[in-house]
């Protein structure tokens, strides 16, 4: 696919002529300086505790207690060294591996945490922070996978928001009526797929602009679910909207690993399904006949048609299947978190999933990382709010959105969607 040849320009070709890219070194330098000045030099007195272990862990790891200013200073110095390295590499036109920004980001966040925890003598609960990040990312990841399959097939899906909400609604209602959370899990994909059916019906049969249908479908689902919530669900909440929760199924041994094991492998089935979907898509999209056909239909439908791929049938099938994935993600809001359905409970997450998909350049792996980045910044905001920092709550809650804007503007820049996304195929 052209998208990838663009990412990985063959080495040697026009390398000598390439201009020096100053964007990344500048960003690194600014962040390193911010860290040095604010978290290191004028840091706050006191100690910060990083709580790693949780009750009943197999390995007992003591809390790590560090003096806030010193920790900030040390971490900041490492950041400064990394920033200097990035300038050195930029001058030699060597592009950095993807671990570099990740490591930089992790160190910056740690430096920030050391500063935030100091002064108030705060304890940073690392497990809670990361578990929160994963929980907040789950619907986003499902949604981003849905959008990705749709756009790779040539159908722009703005209706992810609606699909999440519909999934949440049906999961809650079915689980409540059957009194079994797993029944809700089966129902949620159907709701998401139904939204996708309407989307593809108008997009493929009547060639209506897909962005328009998506936006309108979101409004329609909000209207329908809110209406039914206010009339049917509230009239007899015991029957229609009782809380059901998917139980946690810890995986033996893996779940005993400190921090990451706790976070990743002591979850309900929905989270494990999420891992499966991401891994399966990462392989299928780029390594299978299905994936090749999907990308062909999304990039150059005429060529695909010429070799005998049924363009519209492929698009419809894939988009409906993707809708089922998003519906599953919606189930996380209700049965996945043990909550009853509430009006507009998806709260714009579908749009953020869309952003994660674009940020991840239409790759399952990239979208996963983007969604995790968003979930992490949100969880960070929540954690800081609970340990009490000098920064106002509202400003902390802005954090994930600002991070996303910076990521889009600073690191991603111009992205190229599948060529035929949004263009109806007419023979």
């Amino acid at each position: 696919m052209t998208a990838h040849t663009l990412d990985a320009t063959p080495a040697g070709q026009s390398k000598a002529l390439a201009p020096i890219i100053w964007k990344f070194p500048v960003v690194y330098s600014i962040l390193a300086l911010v860290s040095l000045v604010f978290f290191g030099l004028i840091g706050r007195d006191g100690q910060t505790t990083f709580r790693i272990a949780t009750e009943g862990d197999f390995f007992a790891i003591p809390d790590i207690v560090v003096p806030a200013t010193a920790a900030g200073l040390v971490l900041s110095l490492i950041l400064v060294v990394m920033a200097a390295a990035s300038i050195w590499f930029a001058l030699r036109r060597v592009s950095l591996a993807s671990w570099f920004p990740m490591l930089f980001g992790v160190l910056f966040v740690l430096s920030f945490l050391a500063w935030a925890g100091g002064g108030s003598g705060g304890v940073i609960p690392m497990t809670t922070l990361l578990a929160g990040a994963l929980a907040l990312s789950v619907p986003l990841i499902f949604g981003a996978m849905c959008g990705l399959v749709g756009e790779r097939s040539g159908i722009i899906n703005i209706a992810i928001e609606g699909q999440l909400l519909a999934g949440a609604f049906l999961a809650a209602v079915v689980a409540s009526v059957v009194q079994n959370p797993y029944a809700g899990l089966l129902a949620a994909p159907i709701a998401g797929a139904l939204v996708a059916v309407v989307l593809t019906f108008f997009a493929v049969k009547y060639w209506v602009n897909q962005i328009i249908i998506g936006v309108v479908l979101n409004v329609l689902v909000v209207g329908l679910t809110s209406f039914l919530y206010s009339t049917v669900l509230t009239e007899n909440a015991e029957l229609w909207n009782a809380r059901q929760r998917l139980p946690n199924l810890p995986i033996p041994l893996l779940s005993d690993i400190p921090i990451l094991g706790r976070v990743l492998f002591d979850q309900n089935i929905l989270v494990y399904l999420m891992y499966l979907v991401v891994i399966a898509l990462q392989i299928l999209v780029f390594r299978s006949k299905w994936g090749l056909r999907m990308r062909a239909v999304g990039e150059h439908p005429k060529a695909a048609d010429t070799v005998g791929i049924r363009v519209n049938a492929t698009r419809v099938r894939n988009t409906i299947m993707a809708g089922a994935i998003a519906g599953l993600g919606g189930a996380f809001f209700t049965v996945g978190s043990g909550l009853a359905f509430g009006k507009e409970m998806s709260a714009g997450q579908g749009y953020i999933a869309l952003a994660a998909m674009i940020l991840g350049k239409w790759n399952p792996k990239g979208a996963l990382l983007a969604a995790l980045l968003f979930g992490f910044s949100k969880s960070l905001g929540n954690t800081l709010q609970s340990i009490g920092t000098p920064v106002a709550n509202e400003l902390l809650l802005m954090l994930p959105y600002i991070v996303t804007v910076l990521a889009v503007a600073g690191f991603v820049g111009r992205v190229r969607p599948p060529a035929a996304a949004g263009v109806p195929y007419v023979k």
Partner: protein
Amino acid sequence: MTTDISPAAPSPAPPPTAEARPGQEQSTLQQILSGSWLVSLLAIVLALLLGGVLIAVSNAAVIAAAANIGSAPGVFFSTLFSTVGEAYSALFRGAVFDWNARTTERAIRPLTESLVSGTPLILAGLGIALAFRSGLFNIGGQGQVILGATVAGFLGYALELPAGVHMLLAALGGLIGGAIWAGIAGVLKAKTGANEVIVTIMLNSIAGYLLGYLLKQNWFTHTSSANPQSRVIDESAEMFLLLPPPFRLHFGFIIAVLATIFVWWLLERSTIGFEFKAVGANPHAAKTAGISVSKVTILVMLIAGALAGLGGAAQVLGTEGKLTGGISGSIGFDAITVALLGRSKPLGTFFAGLLFGAFKAGGYLMQSQTGTPIDIVLVVQSVIVLLIAAPPLVRSIFRLPTPVLKRKES
């Protein structure tokens, strides 16, 4: 996500003007039956019917009557019609004309209330329509409305100026606030290629939290109250009423009318508007023709944000009178549907805004009088837009003839 395609031309189907091309052999009846205004009317009727079905199935009395339909079919139908009829007549009385009112003033007040609700929708909708025409998908109406309202409201109680000047200055502040907020997305798109959809969505949330933060700061709210809301704006900053009380119709509506004319002039008569549309139709061709795409991107977002900001200013200076966390309601999101229903044309957006304003005003009365949740309005609105976007579907439902031009093609 592509923005190359212009949402202004939703389908490859020929636009309505081409459907009734003169010179084609077409009987008058056929012309009427295949006209686009009939399709719009039928779409509204269909959507209301669907809403009626929804009201009926969620009503316990109707369901109870349906259970006995075999023994007493008459009861079922009379319950059905009275339930749905009451809801819709309340909607109409709340939106247009209240025939149950005691005084003439009260009877025609709903119509002016619809105009009041429609004013910010029209202004924000125009901003979104303008961006659509230029190939930009501006989902940031909400953030721009919030910023507009925030700046206008703050100027409305922080300054001390003579009446009129104060109001105009506050409204101008709202305009600038919205323009700056949308301008961020425009500049980022033009300079770094950041997708405007993501940036505007994020800016919506950031604006909401920013307002929430400001409303807790006493220097900003000019009150010592713990409630997250501001002082009431000065009388000199209020948008004056067009009709004596109890009517609430204010100067904001005049601004909406003027803005509609301005956007029409911009798109249809000005050179810069031609550049906007050229970029919207094909940015590569526009670039080849010597149009600076980045300049157009920034300018379009600035104007779009200014319009939405004015919507926010009208809301706070004309309707609400003070800043609250929910000042923008869902105006910014409804405005997207308004622009889509208006097919991104200035006049179309104006009437779509009025229609949605009427639904909003009527929805409140319907909810309070008949207990039918106002959410039904969202369903009806979205079905209308869906159906109007797909005229062939409406035609096939009602078995209307296909326009001659299209029949020849297929």
